[in-house]
């Protein structure tokens, strides 16, 4: 006996907009039709399947989000992990269904009602809408759940005692619930067949002959005449979540909302693994970089005693975020646990000196960082931007990166500006007087990235100059005629 949980609004749930008051829809990237709509949108007449142009006309304030396959998959996995509490055999049926084997669990839970109640309660933590359905096979349970609310679980206390005939399971389940391709469904409709029981009444050998082997196999798996290999869900060893925000998050505490789901998933993951977490890493990628800022913000949240409690981790994260001033709105967020062994010590090969050296280097870096702070050790990277302050950047070194790419000097991408830039660039240009130097070379004119500079297009004319003390400096003059020192060549 199998229990299927189908989540018709999972794309919206993954983007956390289901219960929002404003009308939201999800559309597939590069598709011009509404894929899913929240209740607010539906109340305005925006239903799945209508063209977006019509949707906008019906609801001018409609917000459209692109469906995020990664987040949807992650949500489904989180659901699957939770459901692992109720069954030893869990199988994910993308894009929106999970099935669990329940017959063997009856002795633990007592009755199907009990299981169903628990499963419902669990599912509510993850998704806004779900349909439960039973079936003698995983596939049939899945189809029944996909057929909609009317096939939702009706538990018969004596279900396990008196087997239900197959025809009853199939009764009035529409063929569209199988989600077979349009051509196949159109063919069946062209034969006047509308439901699974009608299909079942056809001789199976003729089904194969007339409707093809593919359908025959699928249907056979559903009715149990063909064994369906079950792809049992295996939990990953580490926890990793990546979220790309449709609308960039401007304030650090705005990240708490998506992190709620993440910490909940984390907690489920830990509990399934029976592990405690000591350290969590969050990487935030801003929409743009600003002078002297790294291209990524990394937060390490530690808890010496370890925990698998979602609310505790959320609280720690909130404390960390409350002191964080975002230099720019955040576009993506990655949350991951370190290895559950938590230590950077790893097994060392007796004879592999290179690998051993790498690990020593990583260990050394980690110790320095642990002692002096995570951002102390950085390595340079070229961006290729024209503006000198954006031309290169220092990014924090991550110990694991050192293991992957140790001593080899990273190849700096070639850039036409490489030779013309001073070795020492000042963090902040300093205003100077033109009497302090003599021009040797220039100008090199550079325009600011106007889209970052509030639309202002500023120009700087850079010169190589000879300083009073014979040093060679790099200065610029801006549009207002002011001179600034920006770096030194020697």
């Amino acid at each position, binding site marked *: 006996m199998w229990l299927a949980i189908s989540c018709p609004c999972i794309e919206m749930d993954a983007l956390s907009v289901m219960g929002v008051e404003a009308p939201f829809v999800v*559309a597939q990237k590069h598709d*011009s*039709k509404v894929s899913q709509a929240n209740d607010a949108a539906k109340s305005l*007449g925006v*239903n799945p*399947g*209508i*063209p*977006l*142009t*019509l949707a*906008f*006309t*019906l609801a*001018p304030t*409609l917000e*459209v*989000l*692109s469906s995020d396959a990664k987040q949807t998959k992650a949500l489904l996995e989180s659901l699957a992990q939770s459901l692992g509490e109720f069954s030893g055999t869990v199988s994910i049926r993308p894009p929106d269904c999970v099935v669990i084997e329940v017959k063997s669990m009856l002795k633990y839970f007592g009755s199907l009602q009990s299981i169903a109640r628990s499963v419902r309660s669990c599912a509510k933590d993850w998704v806004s809408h779900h349909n439960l359905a039973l079936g003698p096979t995983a596939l049939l349970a899945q189809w029944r759940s996909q057929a*909609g609310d009317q096939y939702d679980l009706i538990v018969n206390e004596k279900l396990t005692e008196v087997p239900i005939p197959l025809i009853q399971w199939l009764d009035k389940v*529409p063929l*569209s*619930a199988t989600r077979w391709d349009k*051509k196949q469904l*159109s*063919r069946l*409709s*062209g*034969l*006047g067949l*509308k439901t699974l029981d009608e299909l079942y009444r*056809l*001789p199976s050998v*003729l089904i194969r*002959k*007339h409707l093809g082997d593919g359908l025959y196999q699928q249907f056979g798996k559903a009715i149990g005449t063909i064994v369906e290999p079950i792809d049992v869900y295996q939990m990953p060893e580490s926890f990793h979540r990546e979220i790309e925000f*449709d609308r960039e998050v401007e304030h650090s505490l705005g990240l708490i909302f998506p992190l709620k789901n993440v910490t909940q998933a984390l907690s489920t993951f830990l509990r399934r693994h029976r592990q405690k977490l000591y350290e969590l890493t969050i990487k935030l990628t801003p*929409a743009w970089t600003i002078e002297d800022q790294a291209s990524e913000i990394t937060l390490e949240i530690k808890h010496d005693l370890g925990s698998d409690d979602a609310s505790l981790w959320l609280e720690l994260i909130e404390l960390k975020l409350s002191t964080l001033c975002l230099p720019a709105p955040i576009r993506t967020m990655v949350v991951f646990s370190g290895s559950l062994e938590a230590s950077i010590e790893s097994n060392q090969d007796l004879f592999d000196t290179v690998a051993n050296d790498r690990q020593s280097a990583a260990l050394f870096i980690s110790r320095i960082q642990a002692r002096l702070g995570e951002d102390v050790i950085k390595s340079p990277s070229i*961006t*290729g*931007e*024209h503006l000198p302050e954006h031309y290169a950047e220092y990014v924090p070194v991550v110990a694991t990166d050192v293991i992957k790419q140790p001593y080899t000097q990273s190849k700096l991408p070639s850039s*036409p*500006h490489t*030779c*013309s830039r001073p070795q020492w660039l000042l963090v902040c240009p300093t205003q100077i007087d033109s009497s302090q130097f003599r021009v040797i*070379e220039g*100008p*090199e*004119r550079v*325009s600011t*990235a*106007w*889209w970052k500079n*509030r*639309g202002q*297009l500023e*120009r700087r*004319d*850079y010169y190589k100059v000879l300083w009073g003390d014979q040093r060679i400096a790099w200065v610029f003059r801006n549009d207002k005629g002011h001179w600034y020192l920006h770096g030194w060549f020697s």
Partner: protein
Amino acid sequence: MKESTFDYAELHCLSNFTFQRGASHPEELIERAQYLGYQALAITDECSFAGLGRAYAASKQTDFPLIVGSEFRFDTFTLVLLVPNIAAYKELSLLISTARRQAPKGSYLIQPDDVLSSIKHCLSIVIPSRKVCANDSDQVFLPLFQRFKRAFANRIWLGLQRPLMADDRVIQTYIEDIRHWQGIPIVAVGSVDMHVPARQPLRDVLTAIKLRTSVEQLAGRQASNGESHLRSPNKLMSLYKKEYLDQSVVIANRCNFSMSELRYEYPKDLVPEGWTAHDYLIKAINEGANKRYPNGIPPFILQQIQHELDIIAHLRYEHYFLTVWDLVKFARSRDILCQGRGSAANSAICFCLHITEVNPENGNLLFERFLSKERNEPPDIDVDFEHHRREEVIQYIYQRYGRERAALAATVIRYRAKSAIKDVGKALGYDEHYLSRLIQQLDRRDQEVHWLKQLRKLGPDNSVIYSMFVDLTAEILDFPRHLSQHVGGFVIASERVDELVPTENAAMEGRTIIQWDKNDLESLGLLKIDVLALGMLSAIKRSMSMLCEKTGQAWTLECIPREDAETYAMLQNGDSVGVFQVESRAQMSMLPRLKPTCFYDLVVQVAIVRPGPIQGGMVHPYLQRRSDPTLVSYPSAEVKRVLERTLGVPIFQEQVIKLAMVAGGFSSGEADQLRRAMGAWKRTGQLKPFEEKLKAGMLERGYSNEFADRLCLQIRGFGEYGFPESHAASFALLVYFSAWLKCHEPVIFCCALQNSYPMGFYSPSQLIQDLQRHAGTVLPVCVNASFWDHIVDHSQGGNGMLRIGFRLVNGLSKQAVQLLLNARSNRPFESIHDFLDRVSINTSEREALASAGAFETLAGNRHQVRWQMLGHQLPTHLPFELNQSSSEVCFESPTPVQTTQEELRRLGLTLGRHLMSLIRERGACRRCTPSNELAQLNHGSLVRVAGIVTGRQRPGTASGVTFITLEDEFGNCNIVVWLATAKAQRQAYLGATLLEVHGILERENNVTHIIAGQLIDRTAAWQSLLNSEESSQDWHGLVPSRDFH
């Protein structure tokens, strides 16, 4: 060259016709260069002459020297080729064509050898790449440069750029070293891609668009500054040595070529030896005239012909007319129906040459509208051909003149509101869905608030980026985006076309286009013939063929009786579905009001339902005067002569022009300028000076203020669009023919329309329903009786019965049908198995036939048939007997609902019960009046109607009113939805597929429509009827609504 204290000419400049690189229009560059005191400007778009038309027009207007050239980019250098003389122009044009034709559309492929082998006259500037200048250790550039030096001798320079980059000094040193070593002079070049530095943001956006990314992710791929603009003399003098600047003038002085030197010669092939073009043309005219006037050519026609001949001879356009005549002659020899339209229909010569069909005997022709000495513009003849056979004419052109001498004109696709918002928005990092939403919320027809202002208001307050987005969108409007193929405008030349203008590959295989559009052709004096396609000509031709078959006699258009009362009576009732030009809803409403009784009424009918007359307030006065002739009056005899035939109301373009002359005192030249301004006023707003002059002239001649104001209003209306009378007359002929066919041979006409699809206003389903309502019989598709095309079955006599053809069966290929017909040619199919054994088509196609009900005569139950189809196995050569029997499974016959649904899906129409009748049967829309009973209701009655929404139309002239067409089992209802009603009931208004309307019936002159009050979406009733889980878009697909604004 101009005398100037600043000796510099910019010789390397890209306009925005180097798509997504240049950030300024050619005119802006010309104007700016002149302002700065440059000696000359070279427009050197990358492998293109596309911008030259506009550049030339601008340079003529400003009297500023333009140098023609082009840029080519190689791995190690950029080559700029400049044109000093006509020979250089030709070879450069050929080189561009070669490079373009070797590559896919929109790109080019060129090797240095291509240049070296073909360029003997052009001047060249070689600009080494910065990378090479910094490090040419591989010695790739120098050997190549030496080859160029040898080939170009004293026609080669080294180009030095000073874009104020860090490596300028290194570059300059390198180039000066080469100069020193090779003895090649250096010339200063700006490598300009914008006229002022303020265009830099737009240029960066164009770069992002080209690279399909956002400006933020360019990561240094854009230029580091905005120095590539036309710089001031002071700046140039501070950056370059004088000798380098002077070289630019040396080069410019050698470039004496002007576009006006281009001598476009029309093909002379058609004139036989021993004849002059003029005499041969006369011969052709005489022959044609004798055919047109078998009882003798009327004297005034002869006079008119002579008058036209004089003008043609003066302008030397004989070859052009002969070329068009030859095309038309070819078409007629192949029995391809064709007809000229537009202002050419003003010509008696064109009538005699059978190019047009408007008989000058009917008077009112204004040849000068088509061709005049004063205007000295090339003629532009548009000829419509049967749309399915136009390709034969095109192939004839290629065959006759060769692909070197004939090419299609281009159309420049420019940035408009939607494309500008999308491309600029994406370049600034906005999400695509968000941009779609913005576009959807704009009302581009709002006359009070321009859409750019609306766009600005839609954005967040105080967002600088959004503000930039709107500014850049405004800036990019009208920028060229890419070249596309003109619908049918051909340029034919006596020599190679690609020596005149470069050609490149079009998207369509086997087609090449020139790089100029029709405006460029006009300004450069090139002649174009439009070889157009018209679906109605195909339909009429097919009708003629079917009439031949039916009657056993030859049928031509001349056989159709003229001025048939029955035909006009049909039109007066607004019964015009399928009739050319008058089948739209607006036309159908006008017919009962205008009540055409003669051919000229049709000419007026065609012209009056246009934005021009509507906006100009001509419609009601005209209709009023038709019903009450006492209202007709004229302020003067001159005005009467112009307006008498239209009851004192100007309806045609020519009337407005003539009025300007007789009432306003305009000369013919001024009148012609007015005509141009009328056509262009929306873009340039140039009507005002004419209006003032016109009004002053009229008042001076004693006309009243009121008359003057009215005429000015009408002129502005014609700025929207109005028809020339000759054009309306050409179309009116087809209106009459198609109306006569519909009236007297409805089955044949419907069959011809269906076989000529796609065309016209209505879907095949609507045409079939219209035929059925006119008591026509339609037979279903049948494996034993149908062909690919629809046919008329005359076995029962009368008008015949229309047999649906296989062409409507979705999923059935022509090849499969051919196999079927081949198998059937021996004997008909006797059973399903017989069919399956004899016709080897794949399962999908068999299913398509079963689904379409094509086996009804063999086995009534299409479910059962389909089952049999699926199980059938093709016989093999192996000695096994296959058990094809599947009789143990019985399927129920489909219900009427299922039949209707299946037919709509498979054929796009149903011969079964209309969905509305099924819906009514089940109780939904019970209290709604069917469309055929509306005639019994009084004007002003409260009424309820329901139907499937087949059209939503919101004309720009209608102040936000939407016209909705509802179809039920008896016909169509016209619903009028005011803007406020639409806004208040948005969901039903926009989203309903099945709509119920409660409103008030209005009737005027037998035209009935319903003013909507309440709109109720009854789509759910349809869904429950079909009892399916499929999502809503499938309902839209079953009976699609034609929504347009």
